[in-house]
């Protein structure tokens, strides 16, 4: 297991959300408390005889927190934007499928029925097979075959009237839109923050905690105040981790646009 490979940690997405949050908090607070007992007495040696050491440590911590807080904030926003963008692409793809379904409904038989059938088949595949794979971080491949089958059928149709020509051109345009959105969805399956970014975040969190160990205060106060900071760091890390992969974890994109479309198609 390569600890620096983000994928080595993806099993964490299988932990139920509340427990995962609790796990992050436990790890961060536990790390802080254990360090308070084991590391703090050593670190304290460096500032032990410095007058006003708490003021100096407090100043350093404030400066550090500004930079680190900014970094965490920006990364959290980026991760959220990734999720939102992937979500928008899914909606775009479902909309293209829906428009395509409407377009081919106006084709003459037997083309119309067969094309609608192929669209339904694609939608069903996305919901029943592609989504569970995406939630495991696997790029689903068999949807491409279904799109190809649809494309072949669509190209089999030769418009005979001007109105059929217009509908056919529109259907081809919607198909291209669907292909583009689908490709973006597939790219998003593996999209995540790079390992180097996680490295900077984790080192930053450790330094943050280490600076807290330098304070001179009552032990219980140290455990409590530092623990609160560590707990919040844990929650932030959990949030970023949760948004790291658009299709995994608690904050992930659902197949809802496709499900709604499939339901509508079925009702028709």
């Amino acid at each position, binding site marked *: 297991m390569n600890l620096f490979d983000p994928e080595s940690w993806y099993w964490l997405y299988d932990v*139920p959300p509340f427990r995962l949050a609790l796990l992050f908090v436990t790890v961060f607070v536990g790390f802080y408390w254990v360090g308070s007992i084991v590391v703090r007495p050593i670190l304290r040696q460096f500032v032990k005889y410095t007058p006003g050491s708490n003021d100096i440590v407090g100043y350093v911590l404030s400066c550090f927190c500004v930079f680190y807080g900014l970094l965490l904030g920006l990364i959290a926003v980026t991760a959220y934007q990734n999720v939102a963008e992937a979500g928008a692409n899914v909606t775009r793809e479902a909309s293209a499928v829906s428009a395509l379904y409407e377009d081919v409904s106006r084709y003459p038989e037997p083309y119309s029925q067969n094309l609608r059938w192929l669209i339904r088949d694609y939608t069903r595949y996305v919901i029943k097979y592609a989504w569970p794979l995406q939630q495991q971080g696997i790029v689903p491949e068999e949807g491409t075959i279904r799109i190809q089958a649809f494309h072949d059928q669509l190209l089999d149709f030769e418009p005979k009237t001007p109105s059929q020509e217009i509908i056919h051109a529109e259907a081809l345009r919607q198909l291209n839109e669907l292909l583009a959105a689908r490709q973006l969805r597939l790219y998003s399956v593996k999209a995540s923050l790079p390992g180097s970014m996680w490295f900077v975040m984790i080192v930053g969190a450790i330094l943050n905690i280490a600076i807290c160990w330098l304070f001179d205060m009552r032990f219980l106060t140290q455990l409590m105040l530092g623990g609160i900071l560590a707990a919040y760091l844990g929650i932030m890390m959990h949030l970023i981790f949760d948004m790291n992969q658009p299709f995994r974890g608690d904050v992930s994109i659902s197949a809802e646009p496709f499900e709604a479309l499939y339901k509508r198609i*079925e009702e028709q």
Partner: protein
Amino acid sequence: MSGTPADRLSRREALRQGSAATLAAARALAPALFAGCSLGIPPRAKTVKVGLLHSQTGTMAMSATSLRDIELHAFEQINAAGGILGRQVVPRAPDPRSKTDFFPRRARQLLDDGSVAVFGCWTSSARKAVLPIFEEAKKLLFYSVQYEGNESSPYVVYGGMVPNQQILPALDWLASVAGGLRKKIFLLGSDLVFPRTANYIAKKYLATKEMRPVGEAYVPLGDRDFSGVVKEILASGADCVLSTVNGDSNIGLFAALAKAEVDPAKIPVMTTSIAEDELRFLMPEQVAGHYAAACYFQSLDTPANQMWVDGFRKEFGYDRVTGDPMEPDWCLVHLWKKAVEKAGSFETEAVRQAFRDGLEFAGPGGPVRLDPKTQHTSKFFRLGRIREDQQFDIVHASPEPIVADPYPALAFPGWSVDWTKGGITRGAEVDIDGDV
């Protein structure tokens, strides 16, 4: 840091008490947080992979895609009921694109990927192309389409009809009063293994009957220009046509027949490769009145069939249809499940051993029995007349399921197979393209 002894004492005491409290809290919370050391992760379901080897694009897609769907439907139901031997079945369905040379590549890909068995192939060319791969890997291929016989492999389970279950009873019916006492038959097929061998068997059979072949023609798979062939049929004076034309070539065939104003009442086409699914692609007015020989039709009026049809349509859409070979395919999936459960293993040899007692399954079209000697299934023969609503009127059915004979003696003298006793007994080599 300057602390008094009292401070140090209180710190030590705090440390002790804090550690004790932390340990106590960890002990109390651990079972809830990390139950079974799994962090609450739901255990991943154990899975087993199976391959679905059907063309989803290209000329055979119009027929073969429905086999993929009925298999997916069967596995979804099996998974919902707990899977097989506690494992969820994960179907993988690559696309061989209706190209015979793609089938071996896709088959190898499936077996390398860990599929324990593969359900697939439509044309005999495709089946024959993948056969060596399955025999080498010692894995089972489940083949559900009607075929020509004259083949047996310990690693193939044949669920489709062979000529003695389909073509020969169809010829008998055409020669009967109900079939119009036809005497002159034109043999038409795609230029593939199945049509050529099936027609060879048909000619051998006809030699013992009053009916005689008046013409024979083959068209390349995917070809849609049948104008010349239809002229040949009319010129031959045939009063019926036995068609083993596959795939979307049927669109061209029936369009050409309609254009030449061939009346199905006078020259009916008895097709072996058209079911309800293919009718979706054909113009109803061009095919109505012609006949199809099959083991199953959607219009079969039994509660078991109605339930099966409803289940499929509920899942895949109310405009979808069922037909032959979807029904045999469904039966094959369930026969495999029964064999695996009986064997208690997915291993090929154990599963084959489980065939030995003769497995049975109550399919939507009636009971199906897997003959351990031939690894073929027994089935009913049914004959349907095509209606304008893209369904069939069942005009004839065999009283009992017919046992498959992959080597009919009249065509392959001396040949037989018994996988329970040594395998294939070989007779003289037969040249199917030679004179009958």
